[in-house]
C-alpha cells in the first residue's frame, strides 16, 4: 500500500525533468510574491514616525486635544496602526480638509502624510485616490425632531454624496441647511436654528448629546468608514489592514 507521500511523488517522478521544473516554478512564484511591492512601510520605519493627515476635527471620531493630538475612535485606530508598525503617530492637521465641497480644494497631498484618517467614506471617489481599510459601517441618521421644518445637513465626510442627503431632507418635506463645522452644527441644534441634523450615526449621536432622539434613516444606503493610505503604497496598506479590525456591524445595528 503506497503512502500519501509516495502517491504525491509518483506523478511528479513520471514527468521527470518537467515535474521538477513545475515544482520549482510554483515554488518560485510563491517565493517572489512575498517580495515587498514598494518601500512605503520601510520608509515609515526609517523615518521612525507615522505621519497622519487629518481634518481639524471630526468629533466623536477625531476630537482635537489641547496637545495638538486627537482622541476618538479613528485616533485609537491610527495609534493601533502606529503600534503595529512600531513607530509613534504624528498628526499633520490639514486646515483645508472639509472646507468646501470639492476635496481637490482641501490641499491634502500624498507627500504630506503616510496615512489619512478623518471621516473617509468608501466610495468611487475615495477609492480612486486611496487604498481604503474599512473599519466600520455607519447608517445615515437624524439627530433631533424628524418632523422639523428646517433640517441641517452636516457631512464632514470625504467621499459622501451631499446631494443624496439634501434630496432626502427635501423628501421629508423639510428645508435643508448646510452646516460645515462640528461646533456650529451642535450649537445650531441646541439653540433651535435647525430642528434636526442629518448625518452619519456616530456623529448624529454626538450631536444629539444624549438628550435628543437619533433615528436611523433607512431610505439612505449604509456607508463604510475607512482609514486610508495613498494608492500604490501597498506594504503600508497591508500594515494598516493587520492593525485595523475589519468592519464590525455594531454601528449598522
Amino acid at each position, binding site marked *: 500500500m503506497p503512502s500519501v507521500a509516495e502517491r504525491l511523488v509518483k506523478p511528479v517522478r513520471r*514527468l*521527470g*525533468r*518537467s515535474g521538477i*521544473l*513545475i515544482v520549482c*516554478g*510554483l515554488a*518560485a*512564484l*510563491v517565493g*517572489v*510574491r*512575498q*517580495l515587498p*511591492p*514598494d518601500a512605503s512601510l520601510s520608509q515609515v520605519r526609517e523615518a521612525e514616525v507615522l505621519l497622519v493627515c487629518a481634518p481639524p476635527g471630526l468629533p466623536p471620531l477625531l476630537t482635537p486635544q489641547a496637545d495638538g493630538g486627537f482622541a476618538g475612535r479613528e485616533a485609537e485606530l491610527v495609534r493601533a496602526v502606529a503600534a503595529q508598525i512600531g513607530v509613534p503617530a504624528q498628526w499633520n492637521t490639514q486646515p483645508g480638509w472639509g472646507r468646501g465641497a470639492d*476635496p*481637490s480644494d*482641501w490641499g*491634502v*497631498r*500624498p507627500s504630506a502624510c503616510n496615512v489619512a484618517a478623518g471621516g473617509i467614506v468608501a466610495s*468611487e*471617489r475615495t*477609492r*480612486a*485616490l486611496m*487604498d481604503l481599510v474599512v473599519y466600520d459601517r455607519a447608517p445615515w441618521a437624524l439627530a433631533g425632531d424628524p418632523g422639523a421644518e428646517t433640517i441641517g445637513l452636516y457631512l464632514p465626510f470625504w467621499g459622501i454624496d451631499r446631494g443624496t442627503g439634501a434630496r432626502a431632507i427635501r423628501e421629508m418635506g423639510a428645508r435643508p441647511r448646510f452646516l460645515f463645522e462640528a461646533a456650529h452644527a451642535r450649537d445650531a441644534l441646541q439653540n433651535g436654528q435647525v430642528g434636526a441634523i442629518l448625518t452619519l450615526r456616530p456623529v448624529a449621536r454626538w450631536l444629539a448629546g444624549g438628550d435628543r432622539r437619533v433615528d436611523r434613516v433607512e431610505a439612505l444606503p449604509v456607508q463604510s468608514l475607512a482609514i486610508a493610505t*495613498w*494608492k*500604490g503604497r*501597498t506594504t503600508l*496598506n*497591508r500594515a494598516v489592514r493587520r492593525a485595523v479590525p475589519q468592519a464590525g456591524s455594531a454601528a449598522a445595528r
Partner: protein
Amino acid sequence: MIGRAIQAVVDYLGAVHAVWLREVLRMLRDSGQIVGAFSRPVLWVMIFGIGLTPYFRTGLRETTFMVPFTYVQFILPAVVVLNVIYPAVQSAVSLIWDREFGFVREVFASPTPRSAVFLGKLFGGATIALAQGLLVLVLAPAANVPVAYSTFLAALIPMAAAALAFTAIGLFLAARMSSFQGFGVFANTLILPAFFLASSIFPLDPSLTMEQALQTFPAWLVFLVHANPVTYAIDELRWVMIEYRQFDATTARLVLVGFVLVPVAAAYHAFRR
C-alpha cells in the same frame, strides 16, 4: 440501435480524450513551455507591473485621471490573458509536427472522425492555456488582488474564451503552414499586437467620451483597441478581478462569444481540408 449510438458516442469521446491527453502530456514534457509559463508572470507582474506602479500613483490634482486601482492591479488580468494566449497559439505547433512525422496521415486513415481529432487538439491546447493562465493568479496577493473562490470561478469564463479562441487561431494557422519557422513568425506577429492593442498595459482614460478619447489618443489607436476582441476578454477579467471595466458588459460578452465561434469554425474548416 440505441446501444450502437451510445457506443458511437463513447468511441467518439474516447478519441477526443486520447488526442486531448496526448496534447496535455506533450506540453507537460516540454521544458521550454514550462519555463515560459512561470517566467512570464514574474516578468510582467513582479518586474514590469511593480516597476511602473509608482508612475501611476494618484493624488489630488496630480494625475490625468483617477481610477480605483494601482497599475500592477490594472495589468494583472492582462498578464493572465497573455499567459493564456502564448501557450494556446504555441500548442498548435503540434499539428505541424504531427503532419511532418506522419501522425496526421495515420490518424486520418483510421476510422477516427476528423472532428474528434480537431476537438481533442482544440481542448488540449485550451486546457494547457487555461492552466498557464491560472498560474498568474498565484501572484495575485503580490498585487493586492484578493481571489475568492467565486472570483476564481468567474475568471475561468473569459480565460476559457481566450484559450479556445487562440487555440483555434493557432490551429487555423498551423493547418495552412508547413514550416515551424513560418508558424513562429506568424504567431509572434499575432500575439504581441493582439496583447498590446487590448488596453492591456496602457489604459484608455475611462472617464472620457469617445469624442474626448479621440482628442487624447490617435484615432487609429482608439479604433484598433475597440476592434480588438482581446480587449473585451481582458475587460471581462478585469471586472471579475478588480471590479473595474472600461467597456459595455453586454458588448464585451457578445464579442467574446463571437471571438470563440468564428475562429473555431474557421480552424475546423481549415483542419478538414
